[in-house]
């Protein structure tokens, strides 16, 4: 609908076209790479009677399907070379593609204007012969037009062709062109009528890498936690002359000119802040690459697993992370992502088909996209990844036939409620909360279907024995304390202290023993046979207590001088060994508990 509308509009335009004339045309056809870049500098003069708002650029019907890029700028007197707005249109009765260029300011009658037009064509250099062996060089044919294909008559024009090498098999010799090394100059041709075509055919040697990206899928994943992850999946093909016959590694390694048109490696330039670059394919990391961090970019020397000969292809994935502060702009709830729609893969790149997927954070709304050039938008998708509940919106756009000129920024505007940032952490917290809560419930509550009285008794007994153990240990501690008191007494000979010590011992001992006996009674009540053991402990303990008292008395007697020192030591030794024995027995009984 768009096209027919424009076509209708053009009906009136072709009348005014009669007034425009190409005064002077300088064409440069650059065939030194695998692209054909045609730069035309033309001087337009308006010889009609009214001012002109726009003019028409046209592309030959043979070349038109290969046109990747067209751009026009006014080459003014010191004015800026801003690109002019271009719209595709149609002219009845003539084949080829036509583009209407809107001028910034209208061209008055009789005035002149210098315009520079750039066109880039992909896949127009055809290898001939189409199959070569490893030792042969690659020859290509270019078929173009000697003249400028234009709806306006041309007063004077020259065409200069720049080739990749000096070796030229044949070239058309219209108007006796001059050849100088890599340059062929045609013209000047004078007074060429509109829409004139004359085939220019050049067959020459071109060993530059004929690399083509068959398809490129670029995924940009935006995270509001400070990271933008970019991943490019690339299908690469060598579109030059196809390798015929054997590939010999020996020749390839030993002879420098063997496989001269093959591709060993190329450089990909990533943004300067790219981090964590990876380069891999389906079967793992590709170890033959180098990364170089420069001031204004990160350069990856991408080396496919094997050298690419004509007709060979490969496939790889390259990815990296970018800090979001460089590309993501925000104003309140409004966000704008400004990134390159497509980035540099190699010099003079050709991308046959591009798909860009922009994954925005979960909860992004009111999304709209400003693209630098016309691009097909596919319906949005949803993407689920870590901690997503309702999915992240994915914008998908595609475009065919792209070249380096298409490395331009795209802006995506969207709204995002900052509260949603908290959703993911809360999700994790909630999950852990539920987990712990269930564990707590499971541990605290009894889910057994049947009651087990034996187990309950066992637990009760266990708790009582625990108490007994602590009490007995405390009691043993009392004896040790008493020993200290006695020792101190032996030095200080303070009877008062000894007596008070003894009194506290007696008192504490009595309370502890009582407590233990009450516990013992409870054990008995539970019907546990441990009660007997506790009883035994009590018995042994009373003997220990006796011993303690006796050693105390002995000490008293020693201090009083009633016994000799030797005898005392003898006695003491006896007592202590006995006590040791009893304590040992208590210990073993306690262990048994």
């Amino acid at each position, binding site marked *: 609908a768009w096209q027919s509308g424009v076509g209708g509009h053009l009906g009136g335009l072709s009348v005014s076209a009669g007034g425009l004339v190409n005064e002077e045309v300088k064409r440069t056809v650059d065939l030194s790479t695998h692209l054909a870049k045609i730069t035309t500098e033309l001087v337009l003069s308006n010889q009609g009677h009214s001012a002109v708002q726009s003019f028409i650029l046209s592309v030959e019907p043979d070349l038109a399907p290969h046109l990747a890029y067209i751009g026009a700028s006014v080459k003014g007197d010191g004015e800026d070379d801003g690109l002019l707005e271009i719209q595709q249109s149609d002219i009845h009765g003539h084949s080829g593609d036509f583009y209407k260029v809107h001028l910034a300011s209208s061209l008055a009658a009789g005035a002149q204007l210098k315009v520079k037009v750039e066109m880039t064509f992909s896949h127009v250099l055809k290898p001939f012969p189409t199959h070569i062996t490893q030792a042969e060089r690659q020859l290509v044919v270019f078929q173009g037009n000697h003249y400028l294909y234009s709806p306006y008559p041309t007063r004077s024009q020259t065409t200069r062709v720049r080739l990749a090498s000096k070796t030229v098999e044949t070239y058309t010799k219209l108007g006796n062109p001059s050849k100088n090394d890599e340059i062929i100059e045609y013209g000047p041709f004078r007074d060429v009528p509109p829409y004139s075509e004359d085939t220019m055919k050049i067959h020459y040697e071109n060993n530059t890498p004929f690399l083509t990206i068959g398809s490129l899928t670029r995924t940009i994943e935006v995270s509001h936690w400070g990271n933008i992850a970019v991943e490019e999946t690339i299908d690469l093909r060598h579109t030059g002359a196809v390798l015929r016959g054997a590939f010999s590694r020996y020749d390839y390694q030993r002879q420098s000119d063997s496989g001269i048109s093959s591709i060993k490696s190329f450089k990909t330039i990533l943004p300067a802040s790219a981090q964590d670059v990876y380069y891999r394919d389906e079967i793992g990391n590709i170890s033959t690459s180098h990364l170089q961090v420069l001031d204004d970019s990160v350069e990856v020397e991408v080396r496919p697993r094997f050298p690419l000969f004509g007709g*060979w292809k490969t496939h790889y994935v390259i990815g990296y992370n970018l800090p979001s502060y460089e590309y993501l702009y925000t104003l309140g709830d409004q966000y704008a992502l400004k990134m390159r729609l497509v980035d540099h893969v190699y010099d003079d790149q050709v991308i046959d088909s591009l798909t860009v997927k922009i994954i925005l954070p979960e909860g992004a709304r009111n999304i709209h996209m400003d693209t630098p050039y016309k691009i097909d938008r596919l319906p949005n998708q949803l993407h689920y990844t870590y901690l997503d509940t309702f999915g992240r919106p994915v914008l998908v756009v595609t475009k065919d036939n792209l070249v380096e000129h298409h490395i331009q920024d795209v802006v995506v505007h969207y709204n995002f409620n900052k509260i949603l940032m908290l959703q993911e952490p809360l999700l994790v917290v909630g999950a852990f909360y539920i987990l712990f809560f269930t564990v707590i419930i499971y541990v605290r509550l009894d889910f057994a279907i049947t009651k087990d009285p034996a187990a309950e008794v066992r637990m009760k007994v266990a708790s009582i024995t625990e108490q007994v153990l602590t009490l007995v240990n405390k009691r043993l501690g009392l004896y040790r304390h008493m020993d200290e008191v006695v020792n101190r007494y032996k030095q200080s000979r303070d009877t008062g202290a000894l007596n008070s010590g003894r009194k506290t011992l007696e008192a504490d001992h009595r309370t502890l023993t009582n407590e233990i006996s009450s516990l013992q009674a409870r054990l008995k009540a539970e019907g546990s046979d441990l009660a007997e053991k506790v009883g035994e402990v009590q018995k042994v303990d009373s003997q220990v207590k006796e011993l303690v008292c006796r050693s105390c008395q002995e000490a008293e007697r020693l201090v009083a001088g009633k016994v000799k020192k030797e005898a005392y030591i003898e006695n003491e030794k006896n007592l202590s060994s006995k006590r040791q024995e009893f304590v040992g027995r208590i210990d073993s009984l306690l262990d048994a508990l």
Partner: protein
Amino acid sequence: SSRLFAVIRFESIIHEFDPWFNYRSTHHLASNGFYEFLNWFDERAWYPLGRIVGGTVYPGLMVTAGLIHYVLNLLHVTVHIRDVCVFLAPVFSGLTSISTFLLTRELWNQGAGLLAACFIAIVPGYISRSVAGSFDNEGIAIFALQFTYYLWVKSVKTGSVFWTIGCCISYFYMVSAWGGYVFIINLIPLHVFVLLLMQRYSRRVYIAYSTFYIVGLVLSMQVPFVGFQPIRTSEHMAAAGVFALLQAYAFLLYLKDRLTKQEFQTLFFLGVSLAAGVVFLTVIYLTYTGEWACIHVDFFFPRHTVFYSHLGPFYAKIHIPIIASVSEHQPTTWVSFFFDLHILVCTFPAGLWFCIKNINDERVFVALYAISAVYFAGVMVRLMLTLTPVVCMLSAVAFSSVFEHYMGDDTRREKPPAEDSSDEDDKRNSGNLYDKVSLLTMLMLMLLMMFAVHCTWVTSNAYSSPSVVLASYNHDGSRNILDDFREAYYWLRQNTDEHVRVMSWWDYGYQIAGMANRTTLVDNNTWNNSHIALVGKAMSSNESAAYEIMRSLDVDYVLIIFGGVIGYSGDDINKFLWMVRIAEGEHPKDIRESDYFTPQGEFRVDKAGSPTLLNCLMYKMSYYRFGEMQETEAKLDFRTPPGFDRTRNVEIGNKDIKFKHLEEAFTSEHWLVRIYKVKHLDNRESLDHKLRSVVPKQKYTSKKVRKSYLFQ
């Protein structure tokens, strides 16, 4: 964490050969669903036969990985299936460690359990199968094995059906995961049998075994690959026999309660003679119906041969060269015992002795486990894996009892010297003892420390290389990665037609299928010996004979591994004798091993080599244009002659190699992988201008003659 060395040093990638197949089938499972996986007919393998994958694999591994992947993706944890596969083995070795702890705790005590768990975590014998990236059946099977044994011991101890059912489920998992389940189904009956012999029969054993046998049998038959084997093949007969015996024994015991001694005796004899008669009749019946023959045939069915070769070290060597040709099927050397188990190999007999000294039901089990595993490990390097857990457990028992003894004494002895200070003599005495004890403890700890160091060293040096990627070190210590395998496989993947058929020796079959995604003729699932022999024959014939074979097999490309440039010893020339042997086994008329040796009986690739060798396809493909290659940059001191093979350190014998039917299609950067394209038939050659001889369509003869012709 030492299992992750390989990932850190290289990348997250699947190692070795078999894991590539497992990865590929897991990928298939993850992308196509479970039923599709079970019905998967893989036309990419064993061209032109194909392979029914669903029915010929143990699906446990794939299903486990697929399930983990599915659950993670359900939770929106976007993990690639490859990463799941790579990290599955380390995760499962953690679980193995836990189940080893549980099992050892049941056998001995908690301390020994902890030690055992520590040992199994770092012992190289197990790490070799569970490093990250080694996505193989064994990785999860050892966990299943240990866990099944734990549940079995538990069920024998308690006699509860609950534990036994748990044991059966675990056994089912094991069956679905690894062919080594045969070890369980023989060891558990053996345990029961020995318990019967030792008069340790109890109701608990009866319950446990009866339940286990029935439920386990039914469950194991659910695995498609196993099918009806548990009731047909001889590996499983022991279990059935013990089951019958146990029933008879229990029945007899029951009768013994009810009858007098006299009656019992007559009944016993009657029963025995009846049983003998029944067995006899069954044998006769089976022989008549041919079932028996079927069972006999099973003896020679290739799938079972691995099992038989497990039983005897010499079985495989004599009968099937293909099994003997695999390095991990070689008998274990003493060195590898020490290498894989280190100090544990010395301490584990001590643990066994401790167990036998304080015997009870479950220790009988572990003793049997140990003895049988030692035997199997001696037969085959591969089965070192089943030995490793039991060695860890018993060594842990040994260590823990020693520690318990000395350290326990230690704490008790500490008290008396603190008590009194009067007796000098006593103190010195006890101090001495104290020193001795601490010395011994220190010594033990030193041993353990050395063990840990050894384990780390072995892991990092021997078991952390993916073998798909080779690494070499320069003089300055920087690392060179040789990625030739993937280079060539990826070339195949990208630059050949999707349906081409690649011929290679079977070692590389899984990798070609997994990485290059192309049809292979033979692969690591060596189920069809004659097909492999045919490939072997093609490799070892001369070019025109090989071309005939390759034409008949529709081969488009031939892939070989050649290590002569960088000195890689695992290349095809070094494996070549096995190809010849296997080919000879099937085609003794065409291929004779002796032709490939010099008259002195040597295998040489230089000028003195036998002409048959120098002109066979494998030789020609390996050394094509190698004769021109001059190695100068590597060895500056002396100029080696052109065509100097660095793997075998000789100058090759045949430098002038021309191909008629093949052409070089691709050679990787270091010449490690060479791929040749098989040319189509030349159409010029067949144009011999013979005179057309007209053959009359029908001879006109009289009816009489025709008749007589008929009756001739």
